[in-house]
């Protein structure tokens, strides 16, 4: 198959990346799906690497582990340090953190929708392969939107640099607050960018309304049984049970929709456990209180779900007016709470984008934001600290134990995709069963299976980057004797 160097490269399995999207499908002797597995690699050695390092270095170190959501790791880590030193940031310190975090959310969610959800829901799942990408999306919604996304991203990145030191790997979070106050000139820039972001959020939801919701076929595919799982949902909520990305209690709602429990970050080990399977490196999180009952739906299975759809299901609403309206429309359109359809994540993500933009506007206009008192100096002797945030891809826990000098003796991270791992595995399996009949597998079918996990925006193992051009999704189909029948690669 090696026709030239480029071709050779693109058909090589890139083991690290292969794991990001390697799906093994086993067929029975009738050519029906016996079981489909999504394989993921996991970065190893974090715990060992962290041991012996000063806890105060963790916000910088953990944000460097992952080039995809460094701000989420930085924030969870900084909050774990607050808890470690038992110190509460002053209002300005807390609000600057949440402001920066909201900026990060707008940027991340905007990118995700247009590049990732767009190909499925703007271009359409049945479109030819060559069009199911950002270029196809722009072809449909207009080039101006591409410029708008890139332009907004640039503006937001500049703000992140202003507030957090470096745009990629923020360095501003310290136990008890932040390193740098904002002045009124900075504030003006945040206010103006926030206005821009709110408009963008409304505009993006408008596109979703026009292109997706007005197309019955797309709505049907969101509601498809192949993409539906009735699980528990987890998300961080504020005191009014509204979605909050930066801080609050962790709320879990049941498959029926009611509150199942609510707990503090510090108690996560009492409620979240990890199940190990021989075929996967990833540990599958489940609710301890319910128990592990296999990869199953329903109230008797401890499988739960995080990320945008889960956050909307786990909360009673959004804390800002425009997002709240969109939240109400979401549930009324999709048949009430909770919504169990995985592809609805794309819509939920846009509602969250609008919320992040509105929250950014509120915080930017808050007089406290330019108060120079941005840090409370820690005085307690450290022992143990847990921090939680909602990363764009779901609930993220950082947990450190230290000696009296603040040197790490034990570290544990639960990343978003781990929380979601069991449900993602179920989604891939169910989608494969739903679309593969009589051993028939082609590119369109591959895309339908892929859609099942793409909606989660999985970010496995917090890997950092990929050689440009080297991101194959590999689907291997095996017969009843586990012999390879067919391999399809998503690499051009």
């Amino acid at each position, binding site marked *: 198959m090696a026709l030239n160097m480029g071709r050779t490269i693109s058909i090589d399995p890139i083991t*690290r*990346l292969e794991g990001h999207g390697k799906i093994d499908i086993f067929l029975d002797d009738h050519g029906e799906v016996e079981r489909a597995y999504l394989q993921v690699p996991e970065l190893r050695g974090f715990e060992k690497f962290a041991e012996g390092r000063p806890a105060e270095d963790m916000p910088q170190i953990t944000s460097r582990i992952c080039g995809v959501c460094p701000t989420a790791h930085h924030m969870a880590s900084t909050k774990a340090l607050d808890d470690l030193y038992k110190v509460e940031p002053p209002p300005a310190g807390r609000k600057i953190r949440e402001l920066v975090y909201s900026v990060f959310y707008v940027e991340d969610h905007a990118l995700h929708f247009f590049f990732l959800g767009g190909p499925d829901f703007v271009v359409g799942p049945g479109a030819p392969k060559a069009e199911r990408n950002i270029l196809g999306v722009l072809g449909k919604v207009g080039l101006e939107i591409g410029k708008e996304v890139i332009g907004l991203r640039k503006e937001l990145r500049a703000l992140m640099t202003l507030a957090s030191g470096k745009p990629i790997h923020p360095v501003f979070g310290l136990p008890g607050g932040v390193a740098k106050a904002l002045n009124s000139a900075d504030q003006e820039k945040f206010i103006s960018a926030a206005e821009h972001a709110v408009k963008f959020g409304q505009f993006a939801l408008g596109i979703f309304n026009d292109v997706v919701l007005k197309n019955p076929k797309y709505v049907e595919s969101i509601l498809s049984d192949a993409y539906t799982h009735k699980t528990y949902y987890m998300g961080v909520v504020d005191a009014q049970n509204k979605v909050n990305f930066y801080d609050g209690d962790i709320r879990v709602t049941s498959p029926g929709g009611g509150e199942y429990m609510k707990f503090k970050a510090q108690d996560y080990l009492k409620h979240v456990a990890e199940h190990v399977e021989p075929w996967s490196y990833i540990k599958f999180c489940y609710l301890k209180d319910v128990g592990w009952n296999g990869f199953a739906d329903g109230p008797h299975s401890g499988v739960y779900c995080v990320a945008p759809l889960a956050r909307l299901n786990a909360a009673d609403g959004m804390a800002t007016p425009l997002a709240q309206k969109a939240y109400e429309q979401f549930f009324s359109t999709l048949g009430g709470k909770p919504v169990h359809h995985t592809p609805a994540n794309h819509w939920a993500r846009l509602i969250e984008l609008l919320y992040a933009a509105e929250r950014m506007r509120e915080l930017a206009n808050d007089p406290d934001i330019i108060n120079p008192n941005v840090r409370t100096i820690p005085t307690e002797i450290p022992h143990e600290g847990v921090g939680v945030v909602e990363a764009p891809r779901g609930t993220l826990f950082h947990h450190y134990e230290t000696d009296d000098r603040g040197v790490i003796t034990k570290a544990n991270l639960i990343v978003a995709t781990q929380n979601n791992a069991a449900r993602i595995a179920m989604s891939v399996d169910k989608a494969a069963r739903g679309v593969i009949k009589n051993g028939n597998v082609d590119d369109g079918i591959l895309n339908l299976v892929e859609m099942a996990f793409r909606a989660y925006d999985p970010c496995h193992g917090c890997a950092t*980057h990929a050689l440009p051009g080297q991101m194959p999704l590999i689907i291997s189909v095996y017969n009843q004797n586990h012999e390879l029948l067919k391999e399809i690669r*998503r690499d*051009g």
Partner: protein
Amino acid sequence: MSILILGLGNELIADDAVGILTARHLRALLDGDIEVIESDLSGIALIELFAGHERAVVIDAIHTGQHTPGTIREFDSTDLGPVLSPSPHYSGLPEILALARQLEVDFPSEVRVFAVEAMDMTTIGGQISATVADVIPQLVDRIVLQVRDWQRQKIHA
């Protein structure tokens, strides 16, 4: 003539450091209108790094399991087929190139990719393998030749 040297990878993750370390060596060796960037970014975020440069070298680790660790492979961005990335974080170079062109972003006319076969890409805090570290001088030489060649072309143009 503005040339970008982009070392991709993660210094904290074993052999994934090779692009970063190579870029660091090159920074000390090259002069002229050259920008050397070390980055762990990927996908669409790279557009901003490429923008404004006429030519670019990308250095990265890959793990195919089909070549001896330390094997250096070199190819042009046009050699890479189009990729529909399962995630925007992993958008391929061809996709980025096409997007940059459509959006009229000032993108390099030529991108040379140097890929080094790695052994360990998953151990946080892991050391770079000796077989991978050993090829850095050779890789540095090849990139210096490439860059000087571009610079000469520019002078004679």
